[in-house]
């Protein structure tokens, strides 16, 4: 790990190991167990998983039959138990450790768009890598000039109680290539409490496109701290879709896209359903750092039961001729739940265009009455309105994937 040492990654991490995150409840990492890397055996086929796990994976968009997929990756706890890299000539899928052995240059992509000293969670991930080597997480890359419309599926699964799962993912779309990912995160049914820290760094070379669709389905006592950075070069497009409709203890993430290339474009679309006493603090940030860059942050949030949702969006324009729009709509369904919408616009240059709209409220009585006047019972009317509200049109996906994504959303909204 010479390069990382030279770049002071580990020193920085060491200094930040107790640094609280700027947002979200402070989690005591020491309450969770570091699982040994690759303690679990590899499996030959996703079909070998037990029935319940298959079901859990399907809920987060990971299809164990691998139909309509261009690659698969599965990490359970701290073990990469399955990788399928043979499905597409355009795409490479492998464990990050394998990638580092194969390509010396992969090191240059580590800890670049996510900083090791961002907070104690990134620091923990880096320090674990210092000790054990960079072995957890995936590496996905689309080769130059290729357009694979089928998605790669990647899954992080926690199988046992009290585990701290860390992962470090690197995703690269080479010049003029297109890459689609479906990533699911889930816990086994019987897992009471656990923690997940996922560091993801994405790089979009000129003219490339990545769509990244993530579905979360955690157990009720899981602490989740994803840390995501995306770097966009000239004429590249990044589309991030995030779906969370099941209960969780706390989740805090604020993925950031750096539109450093001319005419680059980043879109974040998120659907958040807060249930039970979940505390969901999810935002998206786009830094518009180059001429012609565009950013869009769209979120729909519904808070039920005693849940709390912080819906954040931050657009920052630093140069002229950039455009950004932020849209945050929330529904509060119970007196004990709450939504705190924080749309932020930051303009530090003349001649740029940024706007936001935010609206938080209860379900409109007129809408309920309208549906009941068509013979629909009140409770069903409310649920139709909530599902309709959350069911946003996800843009930017190829047709095949759009349909699958819609199915995933429908499945997630079924329980709402």
């Amino acid at each position, binding site marked *: 790990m010479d390069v990382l040492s030279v770049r002071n990654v580990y020193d920085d991490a060491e200094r930040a190991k107790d640094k609280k995150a700027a947002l979200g409840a402070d989690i005591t990492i020491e309450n969770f167990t570091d699982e040994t890397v690759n303690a679990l055996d590899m499996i030959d086929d996703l079909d070998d998983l037990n029935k319940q796990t298959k079901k859990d994976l399907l809920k987060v968009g990971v299809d164990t039959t691998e139909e309509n997929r261009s690659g698969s990756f599965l990490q359970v706890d701290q073990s990469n138990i399955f990788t399928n890299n043979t499905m597409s000539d355009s795409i490479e899928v492998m464990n990050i450790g394998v990638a580092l052995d194969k390509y010396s240059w992969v090191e240059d992509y580590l800890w670049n768009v996510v900083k090791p000293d961002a907070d104690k969670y990134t620091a923990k991930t880096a320090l674990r890598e210092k000790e054990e080597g960079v072995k957890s997480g995936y590496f996905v890359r689309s080769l130059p000039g290729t357009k694979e419309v089928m998605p790669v599926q990647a899954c992080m699964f926690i199988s046992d109680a009290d585990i701290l799962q860390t992962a470090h993912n690197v995703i690269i779309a080479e010049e003029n290539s297109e890459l689609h990912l479906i990533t699911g995160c889930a816990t086994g049914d019987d897992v009471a409490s656990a923690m997940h820290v996922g560091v993801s760094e994405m790089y979009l070379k000129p003219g490339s496109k990545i769509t990244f669709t993530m579905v979360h389905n955690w157990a009720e006592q899981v602490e989740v701290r994803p840390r995501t950075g995306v770097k966009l070069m000239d004429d590249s497009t990044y589309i991030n879709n995030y779906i969370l409709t099941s209960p969780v203890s706390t989740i805090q993430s604020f993925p950031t896209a750096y539109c450093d290339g001319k005419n680059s474009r980043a879109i974040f679309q998120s659907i958040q359903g807060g249930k039970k006493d979940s505390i969901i603090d999810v935002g998206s940030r786009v830094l518009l750092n180059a001429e012609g860059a565009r950013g869009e942050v769209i979120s729909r949030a519904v808070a039920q039961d005693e849940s709390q949702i912080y819906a954040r969006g931050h657009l920052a324009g630093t140069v002229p001729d950039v455009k950004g729009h932020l849209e945050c709509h929330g529904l509060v369904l119970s007196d004990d739940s709450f939504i705190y919408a924080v749309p932020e616009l930051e303009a530090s240059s003349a001649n740029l265009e940024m706007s936001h709209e935010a609206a938080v409220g209860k379900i409109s009585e*007129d809408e309920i009455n*309208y549906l009941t006047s*068509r013979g629909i019972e009140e409770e069903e009317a409310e649920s139709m309105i909530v599902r309709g509200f*959350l069911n946003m049109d996800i843009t930017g996906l190829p047709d095949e994937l759009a349909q699958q994504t819609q199915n995933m959303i429908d499945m997630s909204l079924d329980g709402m």
Partner: protein
Amino acid sequence: MLLEIENLAVEVSGKRVLKDINLAIEEGETHVLLGPNGAGKSTLFLTILGFPNYKVVNGTIKFKGQDITGLTTAERVKLGIGVSFQTPPSIRGVSVGDLLKIISHQDVNEELNPRMKELAQQLKFSDEFLNRDVNLGFSGGEVKRSEILQLLAQMPDFTMFDEPDSGVDIENVELLASEIGTLLDKDKPQRSRKRSGLLITHLGYILNFVSADKAHVLIDGVISCSGNPSEILEDIRKNGFNGCVECAQCL
């Protein structure tokens, strides 16, 4: 008697809007409800429908002989009451097609049945239109036609129409009127008509195309006069609702 309202008094947000309404509609009859703005016409509709904010403080509403005053809206609709709204709300993520399926008791995951598609075409709607969120960005005419289409899927025994022709161009008024006719069994001889209706109309223009058996004038929460629709309309055209006010004072 299909619908029978006796001594009905209704409060909305603590204010008494309807004072003492008596109204009876027989099977197969179409009645018209006239009256100035704010007289309580829509309140009467929404009370018959059973919307939660319309509090019945006195009187009863009977439908098909059953006291429905305490029933929920959905329960009343299931008994055979239908309504077309003047300005219905738009609902994101709920399509016209979905509503048609639910109303016609079809599985939402199945394709819309051919009969509904045919009705949609009859009302000049494309298949694409059926995928649109209900009322979202609809033109005035589209709203009215979509309301009538939903009613055609439902085929209620008793239908209330709130200003079905407002904001509709002349060409489409006839189309709408013909479908309203279907909902009111107008294609059948008077004696064998089963379906009934109550129409709110401001100008009475729709009555050129839909025949009515009886008209009522609602003023200040009270039905001030009832009678032959064309005679009453004629009076109102000549003397305005002021004539009705004076008339009510004579009563």
